[in-house]
């Protein structure tokens, strides 16, 4: 992995990225991989291995202490662990927020927000406030907000970790549909192996601190994927391999 050159068509590439925090914790060690258009890459790894730090470096929320990361910073969608909605704004106004911060004219951002709300299936809930929504619906609104600016790269920081399993699987399907429909490249962080395999074109396994990519698995299943895929033997087999690699990562 580490010596693979960043391909020129990559929308996001990490080149020997290392990260040592001020207090001396080494979070990432020489991480290199890249994501092309049409790819959906998921990173799994033990808690605290620096998976989220990857996203924070890619989005420039933090600067790496070694290596480089190349990405078009003007075209990033970032989905946080929690929905991060503004409780004082209605769904529609929340979805507009990013367009508003980019100073798009009112009519245009209304239009874009309405489209994004349609895409995530929240139509009819435009005038609700976040506290009136369930956790899954809040996450949908959060997704819609990021979709408005039609980013080329989407960074997902364990977005569905707090949801119950049924809701999570439902949102997995929706996200895949959006991935196919919108054609963005995705970098997804999760604890769940099943979720990783179900969503991705490629799964990377990260070691415990300091985080290194220790294994990479291509996921061969064609899109669109149906939720019954989770019960196919090939699916189970791949999950088993990743689980095995992950076990190694904990040591």
């Amino acid at each position, binding site marked *: 992995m580490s010596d693979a050159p960043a391909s020129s068509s990559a929308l996001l590439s990490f080149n020997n990225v290392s990260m040592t925090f001020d207090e001396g914790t080494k979070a990432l060690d020489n991480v290199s991989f890249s994501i092309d258009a049409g790819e959906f890459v998921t990173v799994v790894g033990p808690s605290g291995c620096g998976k989220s730090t990857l996203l924070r470096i890619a989005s420039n*929320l933090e600067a790496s202490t070694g290596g480089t990361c190349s990405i078009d910073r003007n075209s990033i969608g970032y989905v946080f662990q929690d929905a991060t909605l503004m*409780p*004082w704004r209605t769904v529609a106004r929340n979805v507009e927020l990013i367009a508003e*911060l980019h100073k798009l004219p009112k009519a245009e951002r209304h239009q874009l927000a309405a489209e994004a709300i349609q895409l995530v299936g929240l139509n009819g809930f435009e005038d609700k406030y976040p506290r009136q929504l369930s956790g899954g619906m809040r996450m949908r609104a959060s997704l819609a907000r990021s979709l408005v600016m039609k980013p080329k790269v989407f960074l997902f920081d364990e977005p569905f970790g707090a949801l119950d399993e049924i809701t999570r699987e439902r949102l997995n399907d929706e996200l895949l549909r959006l991935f196919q429909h919108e054609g963005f490249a995705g970098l997804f962080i999760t604890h769940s192996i099943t979720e990783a395999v179900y969503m991705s074109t490629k799964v990377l396994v990260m070691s415990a601190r300091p985080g290194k990519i220790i294994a990479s698995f291509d996921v061969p299943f064609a899109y669109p994927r149906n939720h019954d895929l989770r019960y196919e033997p090939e699916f189970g087999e791949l999950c088993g391999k990743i689980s095995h690699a992950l076990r190694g990562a904990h040591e």
Partner: protein
Amino acid sequence: MSSSNAIANPVEEVIPDKSDKFSFADYIGPVVVFMVFIGAWYLLSSVVLPEQKRFLLPTPHKVIQEGFFVWHSGERRGLHPILMSLWDSAKIALLGLGITIVIGMSLAVLMSSSRWLERATWPYLVAIQSAPVLALTPLIRALIDGTQTQRLLVVVLIAMFPIVSNTLFGLLSADKSQHELFTLQGASKWTRLVKLQFPAALPNIFVGLRISAGLAVIGAVVGDFYFRQGGVVGIGAQIDVYRNRLWGPELITAIILASTLGLVVFLFFGWVSRRAIGKWHIITRGH
């Protein structure tokens, strides 16, 4: 479920709004407490107090007869002069509260954006909050001309702290991830203040407003005791006169009306708060 209609019905469940319907029990409580209050008052003024001291606390019906139902008697007695001086104090309280809000919120904004300023000013705010402002009256009188200005200053000093502390707390209450959302879009400090920190602070700001509004009324009444001149005087000055002349019914009437002013202001800001943020913020009882 096919993937095409997986999105058709995404409704998990919408959490219903809790309606705040009042029941009979919500009314019976206040009525019972009010009756106990009136009963205790009668007991105090006609049984507990020795006969020669009963003028200090006239019975409720005497207060109503001589305090509320006498419009004007002599220069200072009756409901009319009491209401006039109450209005005079209310103006000082409201104007002082307005000044406090402008200064207090600006100060909180500055403090929220600068850690050293916060650290440098905080101890003085706490000191002003706990200092006996009235002990400073000779100094205030020496430094500032004009009764009105002196009264306003007392109001501002007494009402300032809750506005500053609650606004500051609110401005700093936005989540880290909410801040990061703004950082990711390259939002300016001003945008962040207006679109994130200020709305996030509104529930706290309203809590501060209600406390400060009550204190502003107290400040105005207390300031009246010390800063007065001829003509219409504040309710505090009026209370002082009644106290000195042992005019019980007028004294109690003035105290009741001054408290009512505080109550009205408190309820008003509660109403404004519900109107402004009730839709998205669950206002807990007592706030």
